[in-house]
């Protein structure tokens, strides 16, 4: 946002207040609590990268094989676009598949 400049006094005060917050002196190892989203129910507000990349943008952080990770993501909506939503819409998605790594072909199809 550095290309934006305040053009009136109110905007200037906002800019000053924002810069004061940013330039606060903190201890080197101080880590503020990360802000986490409030997800009231289900998956509607969660967006994470897909199966192809991990949280760091690579592949080293993925489960091996990735099918190991299908079910826990199915329950917790970690990858809500790629995996069905257990809690709200697809409670039976995995009912014919006990082991995702071996039997993933038995997973149900989900149509929007």
């Amino acid at each position: 946002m550095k290309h934006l400049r305040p053009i009136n006094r109110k905007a200037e005060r906002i800019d000053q207040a924002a810069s004061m917050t940013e330039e606060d002196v903190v201890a080197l190892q101080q880590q503020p609590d990360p802000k986490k989203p409030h997800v009231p129910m289900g998956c509607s507000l969660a967006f994470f990268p897909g199966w192809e990349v991990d949280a760091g943008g690579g592949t080293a952080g993925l489960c091996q094989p990735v099918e190991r990770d299908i079910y826990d993501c199915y329950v917790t909506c970690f990858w809500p676009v790629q995996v069905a939503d257990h809690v709200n819409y697809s409670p039976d998605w995995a009912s014919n598949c006990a082991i995702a790594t071996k039997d993933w072909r038995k997973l149900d199809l989900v149509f929007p």
Partner: protein
Amino acid sequence: MKTLRLGLIALWAAATAALSPAQAGTMFLGGYPSQLMVIDEAKGAVTQEIDLKTGLPMSMRLSDDGKLLYATTITTSGIEVVDIATRKIVNSFSLNTPGVRYRFTGGVADRSGRYFYILGTRIDKGVDSYRISKQQFMVVDLQTKAVVRTADLEPDDQKFSFRGALMLSPDGKTLYAFRDKVIVVNTADLKTVDHFDLAKPDFPGMQEVSFGGGVGRLQTPGQFVSLFETEDPYIHNKTFGVARLDLDTRQFSFTPIGPSPKALSGLEVSPDGKFGYTVAVIGDLGSQRCEFWRFDLDKNRALDKAEFPCRRRFYFGISGDGRKLYIYGAGFDVAVYDAKTLKPATAWELTHDITMSGMVITR
């Protein structure tokens, strides 16, 4: 003569069994899509599957007398009670109705077996919207199969996570919620009466499942022993150590051991109460390393450690006889390690993918 010999052999066998400090037990693990797997620790194989009526198991908790297993399920916000001796479901119900849903991940039953304490939220479906309650302590009546009492957590305790194991004092008067702080609650009115600035070490990917083993192995009734971490108020360096919490008197002692690694699992305790084990995770993603750490719980100090191959997400447990350490999930297998040498021993393939419900072992 033959009869006498057989009698002596039988007597010797009985005496050996009685003197044996610990035996391999029976393991209960949650399985997808809606099972509890019963595993014989000696054989390393699934011997029975218990179908849950209310859906996918998300937590398990053994009653104080070890006779009942309480499982909570997420699919329909259910609670199922399993009789350990017969392995039959003796109570099963869902809290959800067409207009009301609940979200919670675990709980604890009182000693009477009548009431079940949970921490969660209630969602009411309106004509054009959903009304979501604040996070609440709730009391479920296991006989009437309904939530009978609720109380909102204090505003400062309204955190995003539903996770946070619950413990109940033996006299049933105090409830403890282990989150980023320990919240102490009076069960009579569900009001928060105190906080301890201690947190259970936890990290994304390793769920808070250590209570199944750790609590079951307590040598001193009414006392909860586990790893906790604390941080100083200025630099915010985190230190981990062993904390002992007296559940009746609400007193705790904390003995620091060293600086906290990036992540630390819960404490698993050997049956004799002398040794504790945990898993430390150092680094992240491609540079992640995992280590077993062993502690002398009499002297509150670390004894040794050993590296093992990381899984991206996993849970940690200990066998009923304390001789084996388990790394399990995500997936369908359990990696078994020797608790003495901390070296890999074998691996068991199960019949279902393992859920996040943790591990309960009975003997």
